[in-house]
């Protein structure tokens, strides 16, 4: 047993046993290639599942046709940081959908233009990274909260396609619901 263990160690040093790949190559839709530690990549459930299917294959490279290079780098930045600074798990398991509890680093991370923010939502969904999806959705929700409909339209470049009668009907129903 000791003999075979020694041989195993020797071979893995030489890199001939790629079963335990420590890093993964990720390729974006526009051919950007990034090498990341396996543990970082596996924060994406999608990538984790793909890696399980590629177990034992040398030089595992994962193509992500739905993610551009720019977004991929942002996602990796998020995963790296959160791997190094894990958020303490909330024992209470409450799902109150609060949006006022975003951590400072995450707030900074989300200070990007709208297009990038929405692309991050799509990427977080496709890559199945729940904390990133929650963060980006919360960020957009915070851009909505406290605004009037007209302010919301301005923020997101939305056309008001209601007729005056339609708008009046909805307004009346909402007001009736809110009255005490």
């Amino acid at each position, binding site marked *: 047993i000791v003999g075979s263990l020694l041989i195993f160690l020797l071979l893995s040093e030489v890199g001939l046993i790629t079963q335990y790949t420590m890093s993964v190559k990720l390729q974006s839709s526009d051919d950007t290639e990034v090498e990341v530690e396996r543990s970082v990549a596996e924060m994406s459930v999608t990538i984790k599942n793909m890696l399980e299917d590629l177990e034992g294959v040398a030089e595992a490279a994962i193509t992500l046709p739905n993610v551009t290079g720019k977004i991929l780098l942002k996602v990796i930045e998020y995963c790296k940081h959160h791997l190094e600074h894990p958020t303490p798990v909330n024992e*209470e*398991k*409450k*799902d*109150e*959908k609060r*949006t006022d509890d975003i951590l400072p680093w995450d707030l900074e991370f989300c200070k990007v233009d*709208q*297009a990038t923010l*929405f*692309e991050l*939502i*799509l990427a977080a*969904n496709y890559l199945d990274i729940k904390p990133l*999806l929650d963060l980006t*959705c*919360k960020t*957009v*929700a915070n851009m*909505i*909260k*406290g*605004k*009037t*409909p007209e302010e*919301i*339209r301005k923020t*997101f*470049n*939305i*056309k*008001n*396609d*209601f007729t005056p009668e*339609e*708008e009046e*009907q*909805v*307004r*009346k*129903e*909402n007001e*009736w*619901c*809110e009255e*005490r």
Partner: protein
Amino acid sequence: RRMGSEGLSKQQIKAKRLSSLGSFHVLDDDDVLEVLEWLDAKSLLQMSLVSHVFHLFAEEDDQLWKPLCVRQWTKGKFADFTFKGSWKRTCLLPKDKKVDRPIPRLKISDFYSPLLYTRWYRRNTPIEWFKPSEIAQVDKRSKLSLQQFIDEYEKPNKPVVITDAMDNWKAKKEWKMESFMAKYADTYFKTNGSNDEGHCYRLKFKDYVAYMRGSLDEKPIYLFDNKFLERAPSMVDEYEVPKYFKEDLFDHMTDEDRPDYRWFLAGPPRSGSPLHQDPHRTSAWNALIEGRKRWILYPPETIPPGVDEDLIDSEYYASPDVIRWFIEVYPHLKDGQRPMEVVQEPGELIFVPSGWWHQVLNLTETIAVTQNFCSPRNFKYVYGDLRSRKQSSLRRQFHAATYPVYPHLYQAYETALKDKDDSESESESFSSSVESTDDTDD
């Protein structure tokens, strides 16, 4: 919104999304709803005034307004909302506000969303269409003796509907929606709706009936109470465990130690339970007092169509919701994949044997009572399950409580286990298999 996408081209829909959703147009419909899930009630009301498409999304009652309503009206395990025609109105209006106007609906003819349409379809498609096939029906029997039941159904682990097991029950007369309203209107019963902490909340019976008769949810909330005798003690005299199921090994454990074993069930049409196997491979009986239930059954050794094999160990319900299963899976079943089926009528009781997969759809308002049990016949499955799981405390308690009374069952189990090991490890063995002697017919 309600019709299909006839008359609207892809370009038209795309253009509408672009103008009506603005920057959000790059997201899929369900992503937009994900974002809206994070809004409070006030902000969601604002969204319904932003544009046509946001209006439609912000009015998504089930996904958006139901959680807000539960959050607003639930304290811990007690929910105190009185349903007012929609989750939105239930959330926002004062509790006792009289609703004197219909819910206004906008007609938006230049937009189509497959997601919204699919949900509308599942909420509204008539469920009487799902007619059970004539093949592989569950037997309906009456005048069965205990021994006949054991020999013909329990030992072979085969389901059966017994049509005369409830004949003497007071419940047949007493357990109607109207008499419950009279007796238990203000009693809190547990539902299968969950609050933010993931716990099932309780509703007053009258509030549950208001919900049941006023709502059109895709997956209606079920009244599903495992402690109903605590809440309504007089119910204990109104039903009794039928003779076929009186011998339950778990009875030797205390109520605190034994797993949940009896439930009172009430639900509207379209409610039900997706395909699942009962815990610990216990067998179950379900006595239907009012209404009609449509059952789908698959034997223990199968993985029924629609069930996600990867989820079986982690999720109790590893299969789609009932309506989705009937719409998406049932019409495409090939000959070898068909289930056993039956429509259970009032006064009928169904026996669901150990390990059988089952799915229930309530075709009407229903009231039922159900219990799970371990008998000498299914002992080998139940004890086998307890041994295989990490819950050693339950297994030890079960063993301590039942071994003194049923040592022969344990011995037979060990013998069968040993024989199985022997025959598996020995390649040459001509010892005839010893019949497991678990037929102690008491």
